[in-house]
């Protein structure tokens, strides 16, 4: 009975909505969705009258792929990871997006230049950046705080265990950065045997002190328990621990590893015009800056950085917590999905052989 009720209600809502202008946005749910509803959806509906239906998925690429296979597209805009955006674009599931259609920055800089490098793909536009960063427990290093990726590997000056994720993608680059390799040479290095050897040799210097983690909540917990004195993890998680829970952690932005979330539009989506409207609106300078009020992820436009204000608690300045803050970008390593599609399996085997050895 309940399901029938639910079904008829859904049908009624759908038919009602179909008569008005609407757009279906599939995103990740949780605090992230809240930030998008507040920063994008509400002002978008207020301004254009187009209703936004927010749909949550564990990974929006999965329903997108399923709808594409079934040739029955119901979503319009999807928020997905870079690797999925490239793959689905290669498979012909996405609309191509011309950067010239996107709004320019307030000072007139065209979108193609305003977006951070790598944020515009053939079929996708990045909305947020998130970083894998080093955090440390300030109570353990009073008077002598670490400040660089190299300090992470300096056990003598900064004693204590280190937390690292158990995969090659988010460990090898850090070792190379700490070894003095420039961020833009990381992937050239990792394409060669010598480069991988160099990274593993650097990791060898602290191998006995590493506590390996698997899930994103672990590094925060390891730091909080005092099991490690420094760990790498996702910047949003550390921000929560520091600001919402008041933990004595501090983030080292040197050598952060940056990933993006991308907006894409499904090919043959039911509302292509509204979808494009929404995408243009959501990725303009002001909206991207507004989103940072609700979550510690960085806007994908350079021009948004200056407009980022306070956290919703009204007293925490968000700028210094953004992975995209210009000061944090100078030594940032960008994720390279093409490189990892080619080398993930090979490097995972090398990495695990090294771990076991």
């Amino acid at each position, binding site marked *: 009975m309940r399901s029938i009720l639910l079904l008829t209600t859904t049908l009624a809502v759908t038919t009602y909505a179909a008569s008005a202008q609407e757009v279906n946005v599939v995103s990740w749910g949780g605090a992230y969705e809240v930030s998008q509803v507040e920063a994008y959806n509400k002002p978008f509906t207020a301004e254009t009258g187009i209703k936004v239906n927010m749909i949550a998925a564990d990974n929006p690429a999965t329903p997108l792929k399923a709808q594409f296979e079934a040739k029955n597209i119901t979503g319009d805009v999807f928020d997905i990871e870079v690797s999925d955006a490239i*793959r689905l674009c*290669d*498979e*012909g599931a996405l609309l191509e997006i011309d950067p010239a259609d996107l709004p320019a920055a307030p000072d007139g800089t065209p979108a193609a230049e305003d977006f951070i490098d790598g944020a515009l793909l053939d079929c996708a536009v990045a909305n947020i950046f998130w970083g894998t960063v080093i955090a440390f427990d300030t109570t353990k290093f009073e008077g002598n705080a670490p400040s660089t990726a190299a300090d992470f590997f300096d056990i003598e000056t900064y004693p204590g*265990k280190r937390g690292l994720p*158990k*995969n090659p993608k988010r460990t090898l680059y850090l070792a190379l950065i700490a070894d003095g390799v420039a961020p833009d040479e990381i992937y050239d290095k990792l*394409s060669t045997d010598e480069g991988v050897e160099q990274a593993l040799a650097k990791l060898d210097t602290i*191998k006995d002190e*590493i*506590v*390996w983690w*698997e899930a994103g909540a672990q590094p925060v917990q390891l730091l909080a*328990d*005092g*099991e490690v004195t420094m760990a790498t993890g996702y910047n949003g998680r550390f921000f929560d621990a520091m600001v919402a829970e008041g933990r004595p952690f501090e983030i080292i932005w040197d050598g952060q590893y940056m990933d993006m979330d991308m907006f894409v539009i499904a090919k043959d989506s039911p509302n292509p015009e509204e979808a494009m409207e929404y995408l243009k609106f959501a990725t303009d300078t002001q909206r991207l800056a507004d989103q940072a009020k609700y979550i510690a992820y960085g806007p994908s436009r350079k021009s948004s950085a200056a407009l980022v204000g306070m956290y919703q608690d009204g007293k925490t300045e968000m700028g210094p917590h953004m992975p995209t803050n210009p000061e944090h970008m100078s030594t940032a390593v960008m994720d390279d999905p*093409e*490189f990892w*599609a*080619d*080398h*993930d*399996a*090979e490097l*995972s*085997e*090398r990495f*695990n*052989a*090294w*771990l*076991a*050895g």
Partner: protein
Amino acid sequence: MANALDPHAAIATTASGAPDGPLRTADGKPLARALARSQARAKRRAFWLVLPLLAFILLTFAIPIGQMLQRSFYNAGFSDNMPQLSQWFAENPRGTDPDEAAWTALAQDLQASAEARTIGTVGTRINYDVPGTRSLFTSTGRQVRRGVEPPYQAALLEIDEKWGEPRLWSAMREASNPVTTNFYLASVDRTRNDQGEIVKVPERQQIYGTLFARTFWLSLLITATTFILGFPIAHLLATLPMRKSNLLMILVLLPFWTSLLVRTTSWMVLLQQQGVINDILVWLGLIGNSQRLQMIYNQTGTIIAMTHILLPFMVLPLYSVMRTINPSYVRAARSLGATSWTAFRRVYFPQTLPGLGAGALLVFILAVGYYITPALVGGSSGQLISNMIAMHMTDTLNWSMAAALASLLLGAVLILYWLYDKLVGIDNLKLG
């Protein structure tokens, strides 16, 4: 009363005479046939009863697992999408240098595959054997979609000179046949060189042999520790008066009912360097604050946590067997002059063997496939082969490789099962 369905009828017939010829039922039909018919009917009825379960197991278990394992030797990602080149490989033996016909086939297949948007699948298949080639296929695909002119050899080499590498052509030849042993070779740290000969992979990439050996060794060790810890508990449970043993039984079962993750996480809290046990040791002054023991995120952690988690699987079968052992046997042995040790060794222990066998087999097989606990507490030295299978399933998405590793694991367990049957006899197994 006497009818074909009543086996007692046959006995009546034999008893009443007719010593020669086949046994017959009361109504004169041959006994064997009557019996067979009645049994067939009963079997049919029984079959209908188990049919739902059978269908369920077949649909949800046997078929998916079969399909999964099939991937370990069958991967048509290349051959389906590159038909012309696969044809060329079939017609020309290994060692033939690619001629213009081969290059033409390659270029046309690439073009068709890029247009059909299947080029990613093709690249992924070759990337398994030659790392770094997925992007070669996708980027070349993007370019040939805009058009490519003969001569194709020059055109493709112009796009990327990697197309000339013998290793790539050797890998494409391997992949042109969907049936392949390459995934099994990789599972035992072997690969094929440019000439197609089987060679060991470079030492720094050898991982699976070590992990298989470690998995079996740790599983044996964990089976042994569960036995050492579980045997006295089971004995106590079996000999205590019912009221006390019930209480103890709940203590054994309570962790068994608790979520695996909760139990694993509790071990982290207890064992980590800033954890409860280290704190107590430091407080007692047994170790200094700087000498805290590393008991987790290594092999020790894996052994401790898995022993605890698998202990009930050893205790329960042992307990159920020990309950049935008549205490007067041991008393009789003692009264005949055996020492308590001899009585235990010669009389009591052999009677527990069916339970021990069942417990050991259960614990060992579960331990061999354990995944989440070693992933969380194993650190680098406590990783098992199942962690690599999980990695290939979820991270590298090389399901063929995961299937090959899984079927090797399955095969090894089946061989052990067979050995057990030969040495101890599976009929002696008693699960409870």
